[in-house]
């Protein structure tokens, strides 16, 4: 099967889920991305991306137990699957390879 492509925003969302570990659900993910990247993220975008990632098999989800807050509605918690971890690693590896391949003078020019 063709390797699924991981989009830039998908990567950010996937990473955020990994960062948040046990407490990753719609709200926390949205807030985390907002705070870390400093860009306003629509909830619907995050939601859609989460769905897509789950469809691709990079995320799995489980409903929480009932809570008293938010009108008694349950939360859907996301965790990164093995495939998701692999995909993240792959992206990271590619990036690192590319960084490493950067000629030193270029690196200097960029202020690194």
């Amino acid at each position, binding site marked *: 099967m063709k390797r699924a492509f991981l989009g830039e925003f998908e990567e950010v969302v996937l990473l955020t889920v990994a960062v948040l570990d046990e407490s990753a659900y719609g709200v926390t993910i949205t*807030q985390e991305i907002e705070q870390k990247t400093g860009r306003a993220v629509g909830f*619907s975008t995050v939601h859609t991306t989460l769905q897509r990632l789950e469809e691709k098999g990079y995320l799995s989800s489980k409903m929480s137990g009932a809570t008293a807050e938010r009108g008694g*509605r349950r939360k859907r918690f996301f965790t990164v699957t093995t495939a998701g971890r692999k995909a993240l690693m792959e992206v990271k590896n590619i990036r690192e390879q590319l960084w490493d391949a950067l000629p030193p003078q270029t690196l200097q020019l960029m202020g690194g």
Partner: protein
Amino acid sequence: MKKNPPRWASKLLEWWGDPETAEEVQGDLLELYAYWAETVGEREARWRYGLSVLKLMRPLAKWKETESSTPFFLRPDMIRNYLKIAWRNLVLHKAFTFINIIGLAVGMATCLLIVLFVTHELSYDRYHAKSDRTYRMTIYGQIGGKEIKAAQVSVPAGPTLAHDYAGVEMLTRLTPDGTFIVKQGPNSFKEERVVFADSNFFEVFSIPLLKGNRKTALLEPNTIVLTETVARKYFGEQDPIGQSLKLGNRGVFRVTGVCQDVPANTHFHYDMFGSLRSIQLRDTWLSSGILTYIVLQPGYSIHQLEVKMPEMIKKYVGPEVQQLLGMSLSDFNQKGNRFEFRFQPITDIHLHSDYEGEIEANSDIKYIYIFSLIAVFILLVACINFMNLATAGSAGRAKEVGIRKVLGSLQKQLIGQFLSESVLVTMLSLIGALLLVWAALPVFNQLTGKEFGLSEITGGWMLPGILLTSLLIGLLAGSYPAFFLSAFKPVSVLKGSIRAGFKSGWLRNLLVTIQFAVSIGMIIGTMVVYQQLQFIQNKKVGFEKDQVLILHDTYTLGKQINAFKTELKKLTPVLNVTLAGYLPAGATNNGTDGFQPDNGDPQATVYREKSYYIDEDYLPTMGIKLAQGRNFSKAFLSDSVGILVNEAAVKRFGWKKPIGQQLWRIGNGNPDSHRKFTVVGVVKDFHFESMHQHIAPLVMFYGSDNFQMALRIRTENLPELLKMVEQRWKAQTDNPFAYSFLNDRFNKMYRSEQVVSQLFGIFAGLTVIISCLGLFGLAMFTAQQRTKEIGVRKVLGASVASVVALLSKDFLKLVLVAILIATPIAWYAMNRWLQDFAYKIDLAWWVFALAGLLAVLIALLTVSFQSIKTALVNPVKSLRSE
């Protein structure tokens, strides 16, 4: 602090969000809302919440869609796809598309023109604010066994009605008083559309006054209101108010108002409204009348007035009957006579009224029916084409349908696709139709005498109506193929066990038969109307209508008229001259008088007959022959009490020996007018009214009427003669010189029949063309279908002729059936139409035979073009196809 997100958004999310993730999404958003409200403020939070909800609604949120689910058949994507496929199909079958679009466009254009015409006819007098309560008073009578329906009622009838009985809110009367030579300074024009009206005329009829006071403009004697156009004609840009005009012998009138031009959809079209007080009215009940309109008070029904009429007649008309006829009203009624006042809604006048003394020749509801029917027929024929070609084409599309179904199309989607194809074709046709209408409008206007512009089509409810109708036609015409084709079973279609396209043969045959029945009916109609028209125009009318010149308005010459007449007589090309106020065609005076044969019985039957006033030159000038007795002559002084009658009158009065018989003229109540006359001669019957009526009895008095002058001429050089006459006219007067020819005037009497005949011809032609287009398409199709069969036949030795016969005979059968259906219907319909003429042609069998033959020929021609083409193809080619 308020912590609740907008309710509408929450509701939307509940209804339209994806049910599978509804719970956590609603929860997440609720939590986020609280967070937003704290961080960025409530306003912004509401905004973000709403936006998120909108984005999460299902039609826009795509995430739940998987490849295997079937899209909703009306999704925008699907519709775009339908249109794309439809367009490709249309382009692929260029010939059929062309036939379809042209046929439909012509049909729709015709229909559109007819709709314009019919709605305009139906709109007459509906624009008056009180049109639903306005009625015209009429007289219904029976005198001497003859029915009288008069649009003008006794002068006192209206005021008496309003005074004596409740329920009349307003009453207005108007009376035309002939034509006038109107002078303003050095200018003079002849005005034919002059009327004298009560002062509240502009309150009953909603014709807005641009200048002057609506209520007082016509109060005083010798005041006049002009229409905008006429005011400009006389006064240009000057203010017409307070200016004066001289109206013939009625004296000087002061302009007190300017009104808008009378709308075309009114049963009168006057240009000048004089005040009724300017003229003398004869205040009796049994003499010439006046047009009387009443407006009922709201809540009253006309029936409440109708029941009061016998009482009013008894009270007012009774005494006059006694005085005039020497018998009481009940005796009068006992003899089978009738005198009644009736009421007709003004909205009925234009289409339902053909009374004596109408202001203008009205139209007839009959023609509205006929034209509406034709419109429906033409559209039907065009739609049939469309359906036929689509179902016939189904053979080619069956495989497509099969494949589509195998690949997962639902029937609904296929229906959607076929319907969008047909709607696309109708919309293209609509564009074509609008172009056609635009091109045909000038000719159509000329033919019907209307003034339609493009604004009538694009204005108001017309355009949405047209669009909606087109859409409906598209859906209706496309519905059969759509349902028929989409119901194919993919297995049998792909196996080839359904020979689609032939299965629906019976329906297609039925439709073709209907088309041809309609076409044949129209051809028959055209021929009959044309024949009847020829018959009327060539029938011996009893007078010589060629080479008679009529000079108009000779009364303006006053006393010089006799000198002028003698002078004209001296011209060599002029054989005879007569003062002819009464003429059998065109503008004429009209007179009727009551007559009582003098047989000693004072209670003898009273007859009401037409009367003429003629001089001794009238009969020779007009070429009317005498049957008995002699013409009037100056040599007999007693001729002032002599009369000429026509043969119909002799029959009416039952005279064996008419010469010397005596007749009392009832008169109008004046002692002078009640006189006894002696018959001096009998003229042969001549048609002094249109051929719709039998020749009525006519009584001619010796006198003269200077309204017009008739000249019997014999000349090759007409312009020369006209110049000579005009010179002599100009020497006498500065009034405009106007003339016409008797035969022209005679032909104009049948203008409405001529228009009908022309329109019939055009419509029949169009129907035939559209039908043939359809037939052509069908023939093309069958030929394509049977390519192989024909190839095999030819290989086996079939001749070209036999192949052509094979391909054509199916269609010919249909045309023959159509002839059988159309003939009796057309015979019945045309017979009904002819009933309106007292003098009419007999429907000959050959008309029907000819129409049938014509249809067969046309069909054969259409079909054989294709058949021969197919039959000539080399079988090698046709067998190699596919």
